């Protein structure tokens, strides 16, 4: 009798532990595609990390005022996205991250689903730039932007269907100067 009871108790404890552990494990797996060095934030003098999944975007869109043109534009932009994930790190001096670290990040986009849209390598230490797009059935389903400057690292991952033209709409808004068309794959105005 005692053995049966102890087995039942063990089964109950195990199932409770599993029920607690499984959601915790699924939450800890970040959708951000880059495994950033853990101490990158520790090395930075300033860093910003923004993670907005689909639920959070839907929640935020309820608080955007559709009567305001800026808010309406943002709502249009985010309503079909699955997430926006941003990481920016500012360093007090150059050399706080290595080229190998950047290569490790780029290596994560070597799978066939990701294509390079923009690749910029500077000879005058201006920094490197990469824009990768995730193509599924010839449609862009995600975009990863890497901007590396001597004292700054920026990563932006936009998950979900997005057109480059929509990103150009960001310029001229949110304190961003008006952008030329080149950065979104179109011909420059100049």
């Amino acid at each position, binding site marked *: 009798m005692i053995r049966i009871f102890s087995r039942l108790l063990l089964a109950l404890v195990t199932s409770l532990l599993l029920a607690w552990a499984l959601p915790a494990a699924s939450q800890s797996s970040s959708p951000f595609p880059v495994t950033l060095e853990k101490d990158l934030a520790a090395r930075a003098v300033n860093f910003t990390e923004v993670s907005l999944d689909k639920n959070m975007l839907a929640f935020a869109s309820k608080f955007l005022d559709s009567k305001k043109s800026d808010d309406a534009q943002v709502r249009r932009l985010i309503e079909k996205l699955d997430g926006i994930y*941003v990481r920016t790190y500012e360093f007090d001096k150059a050399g706080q991250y290595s080229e190998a670290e950047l290569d490790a990040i780029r290596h994560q986009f070597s799978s066939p689903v990701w294509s390079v849209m923009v690749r910029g390598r500077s000879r005058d230490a201006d920094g490197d730039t990469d824009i990768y797009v995730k193509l599924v059935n010839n449609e862009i389903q995600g975009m990863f932007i890497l901007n590396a400057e001597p004292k700054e690292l920026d990563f*932006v991952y936009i998950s979900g269907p997005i057109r480059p033209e929509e*990103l150009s709409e*960001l310029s001229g808004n949110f304190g961003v100067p008006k952008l030329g068309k080149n950065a979104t794959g179109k011909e420059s105005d100049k």
Partner: protein
Amino acid sequence: MVDFDPEFEQELREGLRPRPAPTGFSNRVMLRVEKQASRPPLGFLHLPALRWALAGILILAVVIGGYRELQRRLAGERARRQVLLALHITGSTLQAIHNKIEPSNGGD
């Protein structure tokens, strides 16, 4: 055989003699009956303690509801600001990339 005091017997007879009701007595009785019937029935709310308890629950529900709505609005405003910040950083990053690429394209 028991002998009654004739005087006492006379008083008893006088006391038990039927008398007519005073004038208007039946009308007054009927009026009171109607008044009782028209009064609304007393429900369970006539208990003061219960009334206070219900009022307390109502106030508590309103306060909790208001607090939760305030929390929801604050969280929503925070999420909205995060979205704007994320888009601002995205736009700035694209602008920085554009500034790097633009001179080389201009030279082509």
